[in-house]
């Protein structure tokens, strides 16, 4: 983060590697569109770059980046809403429900990025695809016992990483 704050553009790749997927997650959750989410990721990192000289590199950049990402998503949402709207009467925008839970999505995505690939694919199969352990074993072509042991390790790791999720939200 110090190199980024000092204006080293090479540090942008490191920052993206750490937070790029989480920024994309927040933007996709809020906007529900891949191309808009990609635009939001670019704008988020560009705004962070432009403001980085003011950022204390000793601080955790995660809440700062999240706040920029959310704000960029709001801007894009409003822009698209205006494009789509044929109403003549202006209205102070109310954010849709998709913006709720963005912080939890951010935190969970950051935590998932720290889970090994083989454990993460078990989490995806069981939570997102809704598969049982047996179905997961069949789908991934691995023994049922392996699925169960990876599932336990993954959930134990994730439970630890997600400690105080709600506190952070507040």
């Amino acid at each position, binding site marked *: 983060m110090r190199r980024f704050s000092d204006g080293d553009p090479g540090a*942008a790749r490191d920052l993206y590697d750490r937070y790029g*997927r989480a920024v994309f997650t927040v933007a996709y959750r809020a906007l529900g569109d891949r191309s808009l989410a990609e635009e939001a990721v*670019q704008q988020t990192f560009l705004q962070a770059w432009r*403001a980085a000289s003011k950022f204390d590199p000793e601080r955790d950049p995660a809440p700062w980046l999240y706040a920029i990402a959310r704000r960029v998503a709001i801007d894009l949402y409003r822009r698209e809403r*205006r494009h789509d709207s044929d109403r003549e009467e202006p209205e102070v925008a109310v954010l849709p429900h998709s913006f709720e839970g963005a912080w939890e999505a951010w935190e*969970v995505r950051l935590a998932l990025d720290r889970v090994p690939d083989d454990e993460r694919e078990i989490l995806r199969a069981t939570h997102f695809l809704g598969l049982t352990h047996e179905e997961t074993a069949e789908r991934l072509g691995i023994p049922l016992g392996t699925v169960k042991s990876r599932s336990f390790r993954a959930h134990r790791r994730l439970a630890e990483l997600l400690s105080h999720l709600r506190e952070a939200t507040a």
Partner: protein
Amino acid sequence: MNCDEVRAQYLAGEDDDATGVHLAECAACRARREDLQAGRRALMDQAIWEEPPPELEDQVVALITANQNRPSLGTGWLERWVRPLAAAAVVVAVVGLYGVFRTPSPDWAVAMPGTDLAPLATSTIAGWNTESGTRMVLAVEGLDPAPAGYVYELWLSQGPLHISAGTFTADGEIDLWTGVTRADFPRLWVTLEPLDHDESPSGHTVLDTGA
């Protein structure tokens, strides 16, 4: 069954009688229950599992490399005198260039001077009326980069009704959109906004056309 096992089972949605007994007796695990419920809900969200395209990283790095000369803070007489004069020249040039090079020319352009909070800042804003609202290009000089945790936000106002046209973090030439027209919302102003959940303008106005 220890706390780690109970929390893992709870997050997995595999809680049973044994986890229930443990939760009833363990205040630490009960305190974590909402975290785990929120995590479990989030794990079912498609957004969590959607991957950005691989080329996006290179695009972000290229964008930043192309903007290497980010604004820096200056001080002293140079800052006090030369920058405002240069900014004024830029304002004139920008307004002129719209007429010469842009197609079509803006429907309006107006200067938006710095307030007491940003006395060195100058800006001009040009607008194009469209069917869905107004496209605007804001050209700002002499405005310090927004501090960490803050952004600048452009507003169009008619009395107490304020419409945001977007945010930015540093001076330069910024593309912005609004769904309203300047004829209906004549006041244009820029505030420094904390990155919080409050969608209304703060009292920290840095640029303003006036009411």
